[in-house]
């Protein structure tokens, strides 16, 4: 846009000079001076037309300045043309941001995947899933998965929750707390190994907590 603006200025200058010259011709007193005045006016108009070339020659072809010429003024301070170092810095910042976004998205999608799949396979409910990933451009990896699960509130367990003390006292042999604990531990390990297999992780990286 700047170029068009600048060109408009240049054209305006020429047009106005021609108009003034015509006007001057009418104002001139007589023929005696006419030839000379016309010559000088012609030179002036020629100079106005050639002014971009003069600038080009006098500014040693500084391309950045040339690109931002404005009107008859030599060079207007251009709106912060950034240096290469600045651009590089911005690039690295943007990359970092991108990595962060990728990390966040990965974590989120893994969490939702676990929340969806674990209840399907193990009759457990995911209370909270927390994935910590490290996304550097060289070595993206998952640091840790922290999972809190609890037994699915099925009809039976719901009843248990409503009246757990009675059942425990009446049927000590079929103790629900110990029973669930053992099964929970098993399920927990199952879940852990399932997650390990899914994402190819070590046992330390996966932490399953039962509620």
């Amino acid at each position: 846009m700047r170029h068009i603006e600048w060109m408009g200025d240049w054209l305006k200058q020429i047009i106005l000079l021609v108009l003034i010259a015509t006007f001057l011709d009418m104002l001139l007193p007589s023929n005696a001076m006419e030839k000379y005045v016309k010559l000088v006016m012609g030179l002036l108009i020629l100079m106005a037309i050639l002014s971009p070339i003069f600038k080009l020659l006098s500014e040693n072809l500084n391309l950045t300045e040339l690109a931002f010429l404005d009107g008859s003024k030599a060079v207007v301070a251009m709106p912060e043309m950034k240096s290469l170092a600045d651009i590089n810095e911005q690039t690295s910042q943007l990359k970092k941001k991108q990595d962060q976004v990728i990390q966040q998205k990965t974590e989120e999608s893994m969490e939702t995947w676990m929340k969806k799949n674990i209840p399907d396979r193990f009759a457990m409910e995911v209370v909270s899933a927390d994935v910590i990933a490290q996304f550097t451009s060289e070595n993206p990896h998952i640091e840790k998965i922290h999972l809190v699960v609890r037994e699915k509130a099925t009809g039976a367990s719901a009843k248990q929750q409503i009246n757990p003390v009675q059942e425990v006292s009446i049927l000590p042999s079929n103790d629900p707390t110990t029973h669930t604990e053992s099964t929970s531990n098993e399920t927990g390990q199952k879940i852990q190994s399932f997650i390990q297999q899914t994402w190819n992780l070590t046992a330390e990286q996966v932490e399953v907590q039962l509620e």
Partner: protein
Amino acid sequence: MEILQVVGLGLITTILILVVKEQKPIFAFLLATFVGITIFLALAGKIADVIRILENLATQAHVNNLFLETILKIIGIAYIAEFGAQVTRDAGQGSIASKIELAGKVLIMVMAIPIITVIIETIVSILPA
């Protein structure tokens, strides 16, 4: 000064000059010069208006000041030289009138010298050495 006034002044002066010329030609000449100057000065105000408008237009269009200055100087030189030449020619001094005109022409050409030098320098620098 309106056109009627100018024409009226001119007519009266002409009649007066015709009357006076027989007795005192020198007074006729003085009268003519004086009236000429009067009309010229009266019109100067109007010319100033025109020039002001031109200047405004030029500044709005970002015309280089150098251009406008040169143009206005040329107008001034042309007018003054013309006026002087006519007065002297009226007085019967054609040779002096032509000298005044010559001076006017030379001065106008002097105005053009910086422009011509710039253009020629540019052309020379564009052309391969």
